[in-house]
């Protein structure tokens, strides 16, 4: 998934304040007060795990209203349009998918289980055909039953020209990269043929993919694999009031301002292994800017006593205060998100791998961590894949963990070997205090390695447009990417496949290695998930060592505080947000 650009822009000011206030010392800027987060491998649950009701939270009770403060608007409620983290954080409250993530409230361990489906799916031997059976007793908010035809219809809608923002895994797996040329959605009166998706009865749905997809159960948990009742579909306007299949239904939505969810009486907890749904109501206040948002959660006065922010990390300017006060710290969540931060190297301009390796050696990981808000916000990293990916194996070819302040001597040596002197590079950064700080830190460190870094600021709203152009005039730029689930299949192909390079595509480094391209095809076809995960790890290590297209420097972390009136606050590692399903009002 992706963090919204909007969020990134707004978070910047606060982060730089943190860097100033911590002064590079201990506290938020350091690591002393920050516990190491737990990392787990998210496994597939069994049919028994997929049965409801969800495991109870000790001491939890029903009732009350949870107040959620969010910086960004959701922009969309139509399940077909949901992708960014704040949208995915609330989706399970009103929308169910074929599979979903179940968090054990006691241990915090997470499993993928059947949500609407009785299990995580039955696959053919070649992993091309996947069959799902729906549970009994599934209903929409109006009491009508949820059928497999509704799930199929929900997927058919994803082919319509207005559904542009959600994930595209299922559509492309079913109909190829140009899936809209094959089928234009259900509004012309045509259905997807049974050879693509069949529904032999009202409780069975069968997906016929064009190629093997071992991680289909994970793709079925994406918010757009959701049932849509054809009779209630209002095309684009469905976005304003989708029909609920989850424990809550939409009472009101004012874009950018508020969202109120109230109980859906037709939701049956016995069918649901994931959601406890303790509160009677969820009240979302949108567009609340930091540091005010964090200050409200810290103060917890009035209704804010029962407040949290599902997807928004705390303002770094408040980190020292929160981490330094045991009472405040006792109600915080600090865990890994699936995002990896990297310095992308434009390989169309910086062509010599030795020069790229010199850049990697010169990179000062530790100072950058300090500049970006400290250990509670980001862990120093060296892999292209995040620790949240299954089969994660740390590798560190450029000594980013062992020598986190950088190795300018080694960088100089490599530049000499490459026959490069007086190297001048341009670093593009979003013109915000946080990324200016990042640029200045790099400039100082690179100077020690004999690299003259020219800082080029870009208006924050235009940043990704400009660095996303293939013929951009920059040598270096920071980018980030988050896995959609714990497999390298959602990271390596979109970011490192050289055959898809074009303006706006996520291969920002323009790496185009024939070996990598062919390996992507080979690994995608592996039918055993564990083997596939291990192969993605190997390929990512190969890319970093041989192509050196970027310098991965950090694993993002979620850090925030919640109101003292709340309990059952668990974390979703798959998404990097607070798990709304177990929260209760004390």
């Amino acid at each position, binding site marked *: 998934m992706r963090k919204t650009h909007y969020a990134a822009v707004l978070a910047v000011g606060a982060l730089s304040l943190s860097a100033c206030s911590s002064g590079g010392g201990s506290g938020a800027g350091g690591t002393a007060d920050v516990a190491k987060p737990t990392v787990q491998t998210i496994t597939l649950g069994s049919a028994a795990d997929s049965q409801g009701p969800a495991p109870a939270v000790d001491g939890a009770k029903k009732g009350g209203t949870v107040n959620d403060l969010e910086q960004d608007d959701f922009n969309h409620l139509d399940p077909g349009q949901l992708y960014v983290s704040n949208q995915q954080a609330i989706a399970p409250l009103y929308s169910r998918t074929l599979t979903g993530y179940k968090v054990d409230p006691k241990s915090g361990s997470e499993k993928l289980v059947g949500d609407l489906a009785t299990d995580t799916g039955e696959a053919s031997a070649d992993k091309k055909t996947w069959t799902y059976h729906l549970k009994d007793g599934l209903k929409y908010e109006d009491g009508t039953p949820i059928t497999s035809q509704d799930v199929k219809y929900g997927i058919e809608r994803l082919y319509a020209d*207005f559904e542009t923002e959600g994930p595209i895994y299922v559509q492309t797996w079913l109909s190829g990269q140009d899936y809209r040329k094959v089928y234009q959605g259900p509004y012309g009166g045509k259905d997807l043929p049974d050879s693509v998706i069949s529904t032999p009865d009202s409780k069975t749905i069968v997906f016929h993919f064009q190629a093997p997809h071992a991680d289909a159960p994970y793709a079925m948990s994406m918010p757009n694999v959701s049932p849509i009742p054809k009779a209630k579909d209002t095309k684009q306007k469905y*976005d304003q009031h989708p029909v609920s299949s989850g424990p809550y239904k939409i009472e009101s939505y004012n874009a950018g301002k508020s969202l109120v969810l109230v109980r859906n009486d037709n939701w049956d907890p016995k069918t649901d292994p994931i959601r406890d749904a303790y509160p009677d109501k969820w009240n979302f206040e949108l567009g609340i800017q930091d540091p005010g948002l964090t200050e409200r959660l810290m103060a917890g006065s009035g209704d804010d006593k029962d407040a949290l922010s599902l997807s928004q990390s705390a303002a770094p300017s408040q980190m020292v205060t929160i981490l330094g006060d045991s009472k405040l710290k006792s109600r915080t969540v600090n865990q890994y998100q699936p995002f990896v931060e990297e310095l992308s190297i434009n390989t169309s301009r910086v062509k010599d791998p030795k020069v790229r390796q010199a850049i990697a050696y010169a990179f000062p990981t530790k100072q950058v961590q300090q500049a970006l808000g400290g250990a509670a916000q980001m862990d120093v990293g060296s892999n292209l894949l995040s620790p949240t990916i299954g089969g994660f194996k740390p590798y560190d070819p450029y000594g980013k963990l062992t020598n986190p302040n950088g190795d300018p001597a080694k960088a100089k040596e490599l530049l000499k070997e490459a026959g490069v002197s007086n190297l001048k590079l341009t670093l593009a950064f979003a013109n915000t205090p946080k990324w200016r700080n990042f640029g200045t830190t790099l400039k100082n460190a690179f100077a020690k390695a004999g690299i003259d870094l020219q800082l080029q600021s870009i*208006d*924050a709203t*235009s940043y990704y447009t400009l660095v996303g152009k293939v013929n951009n005039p920059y040598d270096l730029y920071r980018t980030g990417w988050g896995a959609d689930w714990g497999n390298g299949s959602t990271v390596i192909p979109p970011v490192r496949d050289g055959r898809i390079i074009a303006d706006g*595509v996520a291969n920002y480094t323009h790496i185009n290695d024939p070996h990598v391209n062919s390996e992507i095809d080979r690994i995608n076809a592996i039918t055993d998930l564990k083997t596939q995960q291990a192969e993605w790890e190997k390929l990512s290590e190969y890319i970093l060592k041989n192509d050196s297209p970027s310098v991965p420097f950090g694993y993002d972390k979620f850090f925030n505080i919640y109101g003292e009136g709340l309990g059952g606050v668990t974390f979703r590692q798959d998404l990097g947000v607070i798990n709304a399903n177990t929260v209760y009002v004390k």
Partner: protein
Amino acid sequence: MLRFLVRRVLGAIVILILISAVTYFLFFALPADPALLSCGKNCNPQTVALIHHNLGLDQPIPVQYWHYMVGLFAGRDMPIGHCNAPCFGFSFANQQPVWDIIKDRYPTTLTLAVMGAAIFLTIGVGLGLISAARQGSLFDKIASGISLTGQSVQIYFIGPLAIYLFADNLGWLDRGHDVDWAHNPVGSITGMILPALVMSVIFWSNYSRQTRSLMVEQLSEEHVRTARAKGMNWRYVFFRYALRGAMGPIITIFGIDLGSVFGGAIITETTFGLHGIGNLAVAAVLQTDLPLEMGVMLFSAASIVLFNVLIDASYAFIDPRIRLA
């Protein structure tokens, strides 16, 4: 008077059309592509082209602008559905009608503006009048000091302090909530007291100093001294002669300020988490949301232009020497 008003309204329409054209065409000077914000994570050139088409961005800019202006007066059919006049289009970010969003946000801005204006006018002019009446007194010195301090501080500094003190610690005032006149009329007022008070500080500080200065100037005018020499009551002279003379510039400033806050108080709304026009303007810019930017810009500009017309018209009532033609 009627001729004057017709002329000013026509002039205002020309100004608004110019503002709309400048805003519209400047948007396309930005390198940011709004399609990328709606393209999902696995973006590709086909999807970008599709979004350009959906948003109407694949047409020449003058054609887009013409359709936009026609929609404002006559409504228009758009891919998402028909948009009734005044059609400001649908937000790029959330596909909601821009006019509906503005209507939803405006009560908060309007309430903040009216309450804030009432406070800053009362306190500012009041302090200025008393200071002018008691020139050189202790009150005058303290009031001048407070005004200078008030003008020096910023809302984003005193706002959080006020929230911490009056809302979180003492619990005397609400920390600031959007208005909901239909369901919670009392809360709509109480929720706006603290933001209005904080917003008013920089305004009344200015008004206090301006009023004092203008009144001191007026009190030294020959006609005032003549009136006093003729034995007229000091209070009568102060309010009837001096204040009337000082009112013109004060009302001019008030009109400009009121138009600005009616168009959205960005910093106050952001500091207090209020969902008014100012907050909307920030969101529109950050999301490269052209229809929303246009809607907010035109609305804010219209507020300022309208209040300027009203202020010009009011001069005739304040100062009989002025004749509108």
